[in-house]
């Protein structure tokens, strides 16, 4: 039936649609035939030819009318009408290029901002890993220590997890590392990843040359020196050598056999960096300090992911994984006490750069939605103004027989043209902006944070485009509904400033715009304020005149004795440099990417409850560390060169640790149990920031680097010289000792602090840019409405003037109306902002989301902008010439 009904008709419909002219011709012929026969008949009945013709036409109901009815009866008209509307719409747009440009620009910015942010969300948070299959089932795994802190997993814990997780298809390890590559005489540091042998298989990524890792290659100590290199590295370093597989490359001074080349476009699984090589976990000693840890449950160095089975939810998986963690706690109390394991969706990955940009992006999604709404309101307003000007046209169309439905269709088509142009422009913007986030992120190094423009981003943008069409097209349609034929066919009658009729939609739009921009303004102000506070908070160490760097000792294959000698020699040489006040080593730089090690402690006289296992983070530092970083020493002494592996163990504790474990009594000279061994406290230092600028004071202690050795600590130099000359000098000294060594990036501690404020900075930059944009759009909207209503009411204004109002009165009249709208908007905005600013949550630092000062300044800015936007039309109103107006 359906086929029978449709197939012949489909042909007919297509025929109607595409052979319109011929169909029309045939219809005319048919009607003419009818007419002729009728005339013949009429004549036969005795009418004159004129009478006969006239009567026949009347009987047919008018030739043109009947023809039109026939056309209307044909299906396919919808499409024809659409094309007609499209042509007409374009003609309309061309006729007012200023309006069209402004409207399209507004929409381009609105849609572009959305498309860009969605492309980032897609590319960085949801599908961050190109070429990786099943990213929707991929989840991040990390250890949880009391206090909700995130830590790595140990290798044995990971193996147990993988074995016991029945809800997981697979689990794999990836831990970032770096290596020095010697290219000619230049040593260069490259980023790589230590992975489990199933890495490529679990990701569904197949090397284009050679193979991935085989089961068992991640077992043993230094047993499998093999490497898979990135396509980029293969192309740039090895000139796309087709015979590369089987060749040897020294990585960290150990020859590795290149077994494969990853496909082009695969950048590993570390948000923010394009990984260049992959080595199996069995080679971890070569790439990390700290010896062989594959059998050490206490070494938490792993970042890992699981691939859940299809249909398994995160909550289910978390339940099972928590059960596994609890089991590990009972089986291995020494290392796993109070240790949980957490599972996160990719976009909340607690390690790598997703953790930094994630919160900012979440806020951005809301912000760009606001910008889009403001842009829509603006375009809606512009269209309204224009639809008012087109009232006459619409009335004429209605009068000659257009249905309201048909008018609505046309208005929607015009909206569609605008939003489609805006969407095209917006797409272009998103395309241009796809690498923006990586460059914007405040970090001396280049981050690899590409947006992805894929089907889902396209779908979202198309959806937005349709939504905009509806909003933008319906606003003037609402207005057209009120068209009354007789009224608008008459000459335009003047309206009154603030007249209720018809003005309410426009006023409503302005209130809406002001409301949204006020919210954005408050958000931007809060972020700026907290950035300011982050900047002004003392990190507890001095940030000026201190630079940090590191020498690639592990990467260059130094063993412990060689490293010790090297470190001693280097520090002596550096201290002798002109301008250098002091120099020191430390395993972890405060606010750095690497987490601190933590250890169980015991203190004489401090009673622990049975469930409590005091565990405190510590850092290994050399002599002069506190002098170099400018951390005040309250009592006792710093570490000395003599606090080495042969001397009794010593430790220095921070103020909060003294408060917590010695009830504020100076512990100098007392015992501290660290990892089951007894150390003597020799000093107390001030608290400082360890992992983030936003953290609250916490217990922390230091042990001498010489007693808890690390082959590759960071190096700090306090100097009066510039970082550039220091870099050159340090490099010279390093190369004087060993020309094969490379120096890691050198940054000032101020930069280190700035990087810690990175997420805030990204959020602030983006939110304030968009906030400014929104403010501008809102101001344009307000200005447009006010100038339009002034233009519409010149007659009233002239009358008022003629009746004795002076310029100041009129100025006040217009201004007060503008400010009434603004006040309304701000009021709504205030209420909404009080609720919404909580979204900023993690991005705020020491600023309440309801900070009165911030709200007050946002209010001031908004009012100022509103007054500025109203002032111009108000002045125009005050210059109304009553004589001329009354004459017209």
């Amino acid at each position: 039936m359906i086929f029978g009904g449709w197939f012949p008709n489909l042909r007919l419909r297509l025929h109607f649609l595409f052979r319109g002219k011929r169909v029309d011709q045939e219809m005319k012929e048919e009607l003419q035939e009818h007419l002729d026969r009728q005339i013949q008949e009429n004549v036969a009945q005795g009418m004159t030819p004129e009478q006969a013709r006239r009567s026949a036409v009347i009987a047919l109901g008018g030739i043109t009318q009947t023809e039109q009815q026939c056309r209307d009866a044909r299906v396919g008209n919808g499409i024809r009408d659409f094309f007609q509307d499209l042509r007409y719409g374009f003609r309309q747009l061309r006729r007012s290029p200023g309006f069209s440009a402004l409207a399209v620009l507004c929409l381009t910015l609105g849609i572009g901002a959305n498309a860009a942010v969605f492309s980032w969300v897609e590319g960085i948070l949801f599908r961050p890993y190109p070429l990786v299959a099943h990213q929707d089932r991929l989840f991040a795994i990390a250890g949880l220590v009391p206090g909700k802190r995130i830590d790595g997993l140990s290798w044995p814990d990971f193996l147990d997890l993988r074995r016991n997780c029945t809800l997981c298809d697979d689990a794999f390890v990836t831990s970032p590392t770096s290596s020095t590559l010697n290219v000619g005489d230049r040593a260069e540091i490259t980023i790589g990843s230590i992975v489990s042998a199933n890495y490529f298989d679990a990701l569904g990524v197949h090397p284009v040359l050679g193979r991935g890792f085989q089961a068992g290659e991640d077992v043993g100590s230094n047993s499998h020196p093999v490497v898979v290199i990135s396509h980029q590295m293969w192309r740039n370093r090895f000139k796309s050598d087709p015979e590369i597989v089987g060749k040897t490359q020294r990585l960290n001074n150990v020859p590795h056999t290149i077994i494969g080349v990853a496909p082009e476009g695969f950048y590993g699984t570390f948000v923010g960096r394009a990984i260049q090589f992959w080595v199996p976990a069995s080679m971890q000693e070569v790439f990390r300090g700290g010896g062989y840890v594959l059998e050490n449950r206490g070494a938490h160095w792993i970042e890992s992911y699981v691939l859940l089975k299809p249909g398994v939810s995160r909550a289910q998986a978390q339940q099972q994984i928590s059960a596994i963690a609890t089991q590990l706690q009972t089986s291995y109390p020494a290392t796993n006490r109070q240790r949980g394991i957490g599972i996160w969706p990719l976009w909340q990955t607690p390690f790598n750069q997703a953790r930094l940009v994630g919160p900012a992006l979440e806020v951005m999604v809301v912000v760009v939605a606001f910008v889009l709404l403001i842009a829509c309101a603006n375009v809606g307003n512009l269209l309204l103004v224009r639809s008012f000007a087109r009232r006459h046209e619409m009335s004429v169309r209605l009068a000659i027989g257009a249905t309201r439905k048909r008018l609505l269709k046309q208005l929607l088509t015009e909206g569609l043209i605008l939003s489609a142009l805006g969407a095209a422009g917006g797409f272009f913007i998103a395309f241009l902006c796809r690498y923006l986030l990586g460059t914007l992120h405040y970090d001396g190094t280049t981050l690899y944070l590409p947006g992805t423009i894929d089907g889902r981003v396209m779908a979202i943008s198309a959806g937005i485009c349709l939504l905009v069409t509806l909003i933008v097209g319906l606003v003037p349609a609402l207005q057209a509904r009120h068209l009354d034929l007789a009224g608008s066919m008459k000459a335009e009658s003047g309206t009154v400033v603030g007249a209720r009729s018809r003005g309410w939609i426009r006023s409503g739009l302005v209130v809406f715009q002001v409301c949204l921009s006020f919210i954005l303004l408050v958000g931007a102000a809060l972020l700026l304020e907290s950035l300011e506070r982050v900047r002004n908070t003392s990190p507890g160490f001095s940030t000026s005149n201190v630079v940090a760097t590191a020498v690639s000792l592990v990467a260059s294959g130094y063993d412990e004795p060689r490293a010790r000698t090297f470190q001693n020699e280097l520090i002596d040489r550096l201290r002798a440099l002109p301008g250098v006040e002091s120099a020191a080593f430390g395993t972890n730089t405060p606010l750095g990417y690497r987490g601190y090690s933590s250890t169980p402690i015991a203190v004489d006289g401090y009673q622990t409850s049975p469930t409590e296992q005091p565990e405190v983070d510590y850092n290994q530092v050399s002599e002069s560390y506190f002098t170099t970083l400018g951390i005040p020493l309250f009592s006792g002494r710093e570490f000395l060169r003599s606090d080495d592996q042969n001397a009794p163990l010593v430790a220095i504790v921070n103020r909060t640790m003294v408060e917590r474990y010695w009830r504020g009594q100076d512990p100098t000279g007392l015992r501290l149990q660290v990892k089951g061994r007894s150390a003597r406290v020799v000093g107390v230092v001030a608290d400082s920031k360890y992992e983030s600028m936003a953290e609250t004071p916490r217990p922390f202690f230091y042990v001498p680097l010489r007693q808890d050795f690390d082959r590759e600590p960071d190096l700090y130099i306090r100097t009066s010289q510039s970082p550039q000359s220091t870099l050159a000098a340090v490099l010279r000294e390093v190369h004087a000792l060993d020309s094969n060594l490379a120096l890691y990036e050198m940054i000032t501690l101020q930069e280190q602090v700035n990087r810690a404020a990175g997420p805030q900075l990204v959020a602030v930059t983006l939110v304030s840019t968009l906030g400014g944009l929104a403010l501008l759009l809102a101001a344009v909207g307000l200005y447009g409405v006010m100038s339009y209503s002034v233009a519409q009411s010149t007659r009233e204004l002239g009358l008022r003037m003629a009746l004795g109002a002076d310029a100041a009165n009129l100025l006040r009249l217009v201004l007060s109306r503008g400010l009434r709208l603004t006040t309304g908007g701000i009021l709504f905005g205030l209420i909404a902002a009080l609720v919404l600013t909580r979204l900023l949550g993690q991005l705020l630092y020491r600023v309440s989301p309801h900070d009165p000062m911030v709200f007050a300044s946002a209010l001031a800015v908004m009012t100022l902008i509103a007054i500025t936007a109203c002032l111009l039309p108000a002045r125009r109103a005050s210059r109304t010439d009553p004589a001329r107006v009354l004459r017209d």
Partner: protein
Amino acid sequence: MTKPSDLMQGTLDMLILKILALEPLNGWGISQRLKQISSEVLGVSDGSLYPALQKLELRGWVKSEWKASGNNRRAKYYSLTRLGRKQLEKETENWNRVSAAISGIVQLKEA
């Protein structure tokens, strides 16, 4: 322009189908036949005939073809399709039921 009411529209369709069921005709022929049988009671204007034909054609109930019609002219002849015949049966049946019901109601005696 007399526009047939909704009831009329449906009826007009049925009448056209019925007329075409007897023999294929051109527009003029249908209009003449309509006048004959409805004896002007239904007041179908010739103007509403052609749009109605177009609709019926689109629904696949009638099909049209151009044929020579004496004195060197051609005319568009409409004929019923199989689908149209079915539709006519359905509508006739429907009509009989409804009209029977209505005349039953109309003839009710007031108590």
